[in-house]
């Protein structure tokens, strides 16, 4: 049973990552920076619970804030970079953050041992859940509370005028401007919300794996982040969830019996999916 709880945790955390990219993709900005906000959330939450003894919930709140603040700061210069250049710029930003954590040392002595991030070795012993006696099932539920909240919030945003405005900007910026939409406000706010969601995801990730290091937050994770909403379709948040389940549950776990061939199949399936259904599982249109 623990195995399924673990899988559910992974699906939940990756869904948060995917959702953080979903909202930014709606505005037409292709972002490879979500893994960076995820990383910031991870290190922040880890340091707050391990080094400062915080409770997990406010630590996650801080993760959300740090993620949001960084995303907001990135959002403004991102406006100056058009189209596919933004892909490169956000990719570079993500790599920059990863390199920052590669070089980041902040250790504090706790009793006889030192804890905290240690550059290339990463940040070990993030054992909040273990130290407070949480079972795997309880952690899973905790993760999913946040996933459900995030999905509900984004679903609601989608159905509001803000959601329609996001999609209008994604479709035709010139027309949106001409009917009075403030592009800067819309694009930066979407990026900020995405940063907050990614931050929470990262904070949960740090505590569920108990050991994080720079290599976890690489280009591959950044591409996973946008792969979920693209493969799932931008119609609504359930597309992203479906894609995460497809990738994590079906491909990675379900095809485990294929052993090493599974990784080969992964890339091939993405190529096949994009050729067969370029608009994603659920499609991109909204009724």
């Amino acid at each position: 049973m623990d195995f399924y709880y673990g899988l559910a945790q992974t699906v939940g955390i990756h869904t948060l990552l995917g959702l953080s990219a979903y909202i930014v993709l709606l505005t037409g900005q292709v972002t490879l920076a979500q893994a960076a906000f995820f990383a910031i959330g991870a290190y922040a939450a880890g340091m707050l619970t391990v080094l400062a003894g915080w409770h997990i919930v406010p630590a996650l709140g801080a993760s959300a804030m740090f993620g949001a603040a960084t995303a907001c700061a990135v959002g403004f210069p991102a406006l100056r970079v058009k189209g596919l250049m933004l892909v490169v710029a956000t990719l570079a930003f993500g790599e920059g953050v990863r390199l920052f954590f590669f070089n980041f040392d902040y250790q504090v002595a706790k009793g006889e041992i030192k804890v905290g991030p240690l550059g290339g070795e990463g940040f070990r012993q993030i054992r909040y859940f273990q130290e407070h006696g949480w079972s795997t099932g309880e952690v899973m539920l905790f993760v999913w509370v946040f996933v459900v909240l995030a999905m509900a919030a984004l679903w609601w945003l989608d159905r509001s005028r803000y959601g329609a405005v996001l999609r209008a900007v994604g479709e035709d910026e010139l027309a949106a401007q001409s009917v009075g939409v403030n592009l800067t406000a819309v694009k930066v706010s979407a990026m900020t919300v995405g940063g907050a969601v990614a931050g929470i995801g990262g904070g949960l990730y740090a505590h569920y794996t108990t050991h994080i290091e720079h290599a976890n937050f690489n280009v591959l994770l950044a591409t996973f982040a946008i792969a979920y909403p693209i493969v799932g379709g931008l119609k609504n948040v359930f597309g992203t969830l479906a894609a995460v389940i497809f990738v994590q549950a079906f491909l990675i776990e379900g095809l485990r019996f294929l052993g090493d061939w599974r990784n080969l199949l992964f890339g091939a399936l993405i190529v096949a999916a994009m050729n067969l259904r370029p608009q994603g599982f659920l499609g991109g249109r909204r009724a």
Partner: protein
Amino acid sequence: MLDFLQAVSDGLLFGATYALIGIGFTLVFGVMHKLNLAYAAASVGAAYAGLLILQVAAGAPPWVVFLCAFLGGGVIGWLVYVTCFHFIPLSNPLAPLMATVGMLLLIDEIIVHLTAGMPQNYPAMFDDVMLRAGEFTLRGDLLLVAGVSVVCMIALLALLYRTRLGLATRAVSQQAVAAQLCGIRVGQVNAMTFVVTGLLGGIAGALIGASVGALSPLLTAPLTVKGLIVTVIGGLGSIPGAIVAGLLVGALENVFQQFRGVTERDLYVMLLLFAFLIFRPSGLFKQ
């Protein structure tokens, strides 16, 4: 001072390979207004393909290996075109991008599978040759790398500006619809663009393998990032830009490494990119 000059000259020579990778990204972007994220992986893959000839003819000289990498690159380039761009309708801009990510993962995994993840030695030419000018040395193999790269760039520019295919390619990059109406087969031009950039990429991969002495699948991610950085700094769509930027990044990277070590080197390259994005987002040269 001498150390600095030495680092610069070595870096410039190596930077010629970055220039080739950058040209590959920028040419595809210029002609099809799309990003081929699989390009660096395809180049490394082609370099590996070059090694296959050694399976058949064990004592083959290095230039045969390079030739096979060159040709292999063209084949892989065509494959990437067919799987990621030929069938997907233009109305879904995110799908081809995602498909190239899939191809990147697929190529990477094929390499890992066939080599069991072990780095492979790569033949070099003139690696025992050292030209000296006082205390200043120029490595023979790096000179070859630079020399071959220059020949390739000249050949490419000749192709683009002195042949009908080149003319058609430039026409398609400026006005694809009008070009089609003039009877140019846009699909063919696009496929040829991929083949040509694939050939370039194959040579670049082989040259990198030769100057480093070994190939490993771990090369793919950093090369992708660096290639994209070169493309953006040079200006998306500009070949002269990619050339200058490639040399610049090669030189600066080596200088950073000389004076600040490997771990901080990449951070500085990232900062260079950000400086460009803030102060000159269109890059060195416009398209």
